[in-house]
């Protein structure tokens, strides 16, 4: 790849400043997406601003109702954290099946959601759990965050600092992986809090999306059977050599049901 000037600020403020002073800068989080892209010559930033030195971005804290995960927390850390596993095991296990063990030691939640790869796992969790993304400037609801393929509501230079997950009553994530890349061909995250249910699908479309019909059905009856006959229109679903739109549409139904079954089994998120 082409060379660049490398900086490693130790505060959030320094990072934001460095970015605005840059001609063509990128933030470096875990690097598991940006570095392969740069190696292939598909991106050639002039400045790389490493966020790994900003300690406040790594903390994970939990209260009874909210789990707060620092943007620079690695997938491995999230997967292993008791603060996540106890109240929200579905999130911990999702983190534990992103990529592979080495990728999980570097990849971060902030990097993942800022990138908004259609096949990433985290976006499904954020959308289904109704998470709130905090940046250096504001708070953004998950519903407003993921816009399009590789596009989010983040403004140029805006840095995610943490993601807050409300703790649901029941949740589960089912993933059907691409055998080569191990990305999600389809991933469905189901979460129920009280009478409210959210179903979020990743991998199947250009961007993570919720399935209103499934949510309505599950709110009436939180069971796999409630989803019988509910289909997702396939026109806008992804199609490639690994899976057709039709198959992805089918998998959404299957995985949603399985997620509901697991969520029910695990009950109170425990």
């Amino acid at each position, binding site marked *: 790849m082409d060379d660049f000037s490398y900086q490693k600020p130790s505060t959030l403020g320094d990072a934001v400043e460095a970015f605005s002073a840059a001609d063509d800068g990128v933030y470096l989080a875990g690097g598991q997406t940006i570095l392969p892209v740069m190696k292939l010559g598909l991106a050639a930033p002039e400045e790389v601003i490493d966020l790994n030195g900003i300690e406040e971005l790594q903390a994970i804290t939990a209260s009874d109702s909210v789990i707060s995960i620092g943007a620079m927390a690695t997938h491995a850390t999230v997967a292993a954290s008791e603060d996540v596993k106890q109240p929200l095991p579905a999130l911990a296990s999702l983190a534990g099946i992103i990529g592979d063990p080495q990728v999980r030691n570097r990849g971060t939640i902030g990097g993942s959601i800022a990138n908004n790869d259609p096949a990433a796992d985290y976006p499904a969790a954020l959308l289904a759990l109704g998470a709130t993304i905090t940046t250096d400037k504001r708070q953004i609801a998950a519903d407003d965050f993921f816009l399009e393929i590789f596009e989010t509501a983040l403004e140029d230079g805006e840095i995610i600092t943490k993601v807050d997950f409300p703790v649901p009553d029941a949740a589960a994530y089912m993933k059907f992986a691409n055998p080569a890349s191990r990305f999600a061909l389809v991933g469905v995250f189901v979460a129920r809090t009280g009478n409210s249910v959210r179903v979020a699908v990743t991998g199947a479309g250009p961007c993570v999306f919720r399935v209103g019909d499934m949510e309505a059905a599950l709110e009436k009856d939180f069971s796999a059977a409630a989803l019988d006959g509910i289909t997702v229109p396939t026109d806008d679903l992804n199609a490639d*050599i690994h899976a057709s739109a039709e198959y992805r549409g*089918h998998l959404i139904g299957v995985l949603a049901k399985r997620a509901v079954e697991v969520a029910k089994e695990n009950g109170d998120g425990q």
Partner: protein
Amino acid sequence: MTDVSIGQAVKRAEDERFLTGQGNYIDDINLDGQARAAVLRSPHAHARINGIDASAAEAMDGVLLVITGRQWVAEGMGTLPTKTSVRKGRNDTDINEPPRHCMANDTARYIGEPVAFVVAETQEAANKALEMIDVDYEPLDAVVDPVKALAPEAPQLWNDIPNNLCIDFELGDKEGTDKAFEEADHVITLDLINNRVTAVPIETRGCVGSYDAATETYTLYNSTQNVHANREMFAVNVLGIEKEKLHHIAPDVGGGFGAKNSAYPEPPMVLHAAKKLGRPVKWINTRSDSFLGDTHGRGQTSRVQLAINNDGTFLALRTETVGGIGAYCWTIGPFTPTGGSARTQGGPYTFPTMYYRGRAVFTNTAPMDPYRGAGRPEATFQTERIIEYTARKLGLDPVEIRRKNLMPPEALPFKSPMGMEIDCGDFPLLFERTLEMAEPGAFAARAEKAIKAGRLFGFAIAPYLECTGGAPKEYAGVQFKEDGTVTLAVGTSSTGMGHETVMPQLLAARLGIDYERIQFTQADTDATPIGGGHGGSRGMEVGGNAVAQAADEIVEKAIPLAAHLLQSEATKVTFGDGSFSDTASGASVAMAEVIEASMDPDRLPDGQEPGALDTGSTFERGIISIPNGCHAATVEVDPETGAIQLTGYWVMDDFGTVINPLLADGQVMGGVAQGIGQALTENIIYDESGQLITGSLMDYGLPRADVIPNMEIEYYEGAPTKKNPLGVKGAGEAGCVGALPAVVNAVLDALKDHGVVHLEMPLTPESVWRAIRDKGAFDPEGLMSDVL
């Protein structure tokens, strides 16, 4: 002193350096002053090259040399020949062999074909220079499917090769087969595909070349499996020099599987550049370019037909195949879909008559050359699939139909209608034993358990017949040093098989000497006068026998010296268990001591020179052997998603004499894993325009540890072949041969209640789901009708 014996699971000598990061692979080799190379490859599958302007690239900082395809030819470089043994087709036609230069000159015929070569001070400069070479391409229509390539309206790759046909080959008894089909109670027809895959050794290819002006010799370090054969082609055919002027060495090689056997275009370009620049030149392939330009394997579309009687007896087998070989004949290319796939048709079953027709066809795709099994996995797949399909269609039991038709041991030796001399083996025994290992008694319970968990259970057993190949001659050279070490140089080429262990094991066992004192050398044209390299599972069959023969010659030569030391006569001295004994007196002397004496003038008889025990021996295999065996697999299929999981795998192999069972296991496991990969997740896909869609590991599904099941492997050593002194039947490729049908038929067994009787590889979850949903609807004659 370390004693070893034949049949012992001796652990590997090469492990220590590999485990501690001290391996010496091609990218670890750096010569002083070396420059770095990069290859400009065609981005089009088919295009005229109207001109190349490399002036901007040449002017760049650090760029030392740019050679285009036309310049290459203008500098007098020759073409790389094909070495396929199949050169005659039906009706006495000759093979069509287009000229293969190292670079395309006026036409690029596959995406990835080299069109220019750059050498620069740094890799970065070389890579940047590639971007500055301006090639005036005129894209042409491309054809990637071999069946389509035969159609009259298909784009023609070569002006003088109509219908892109390289060769139209047949073997067997056409008349006899036709008659049998006419008279049979049933004729079952199935068109099927053996999908295109690629070897993906974890280490890509690369080479480092240098030229010594004083001696006018080149040195080439190359991640290759065939130093001698390729040296000749690079030196004599391309560079126009005597082969002795090229010293060709392979360092540690990180896997090959056939993909590093052929004569590739980059090494001669590296050598030529090294001479022009007066500096060493290093080239390491990228993984992306490896997908584009390394040889691919399999890629055959076939119609298979079985003639069978009402009582389930096989009467005849007919297979007609079309195989795409890429744009050129490459090194062995045309052989795989022709002779390579013909020989083991019919497997270990009794077929009174068989016929095979194979057409090798040029396509705008990467070259095809042998990939582990090179035609035998294809043949076994064809035979086993038609048998399984027939069983389903006629309502016969798949195990029974096989049992009924397996050749009994009494029928051997038997020359098959394909000309295979099947000398020995016990196919029914291996079949029953494999079945036993799989515990069919437990299947019902396992199926029930699977169903309760919402999955379908399937089982299949796949007997296979293999044959070996590769160069029939091999050299083993033994030298005894004064310090007690023994050097053993063999012309074979191990890329992980463990020759560094097993060749010395053989020598030590035969001579009764210390295994640890033997130093092994391979893959170096200076170390052995000839060498057959790698291929056709020849390592032990040809190389091992060369070592054993050398050992025998050493014993022969040592007897007079032993007699001298025993103060006896040669006629009274015998050798056994590592020592020479006087049959009269009972006195004995160890081989090790005789070897010592052979270097000591004080102990030698008058007139005998020291070092006389040093021996170089050339062994020639008279005829290839017939390894054989049986694979069995159980699977569970999730009908909702189509996901497949292999839950059990059993293998029984007849490799004749097994020299080192630990290493043999490794070969079987590795071969099975590659078969599983092809059956379930691997597939090379080109789009209609010839663009490679599966060009990286993100899309090409190499199996990981959670996909491959545990395998139980047993060996049958009751039928060592008499075709070579050691009784060895080459083991290296057999794993691939049995795995494809075992896996595919097991999945189809799981899907039988859904009416699914056929599926193409790879059996992706989506393809399984669709088949269930469509209740197995498919056209059994949908692939070959246009070309038959």
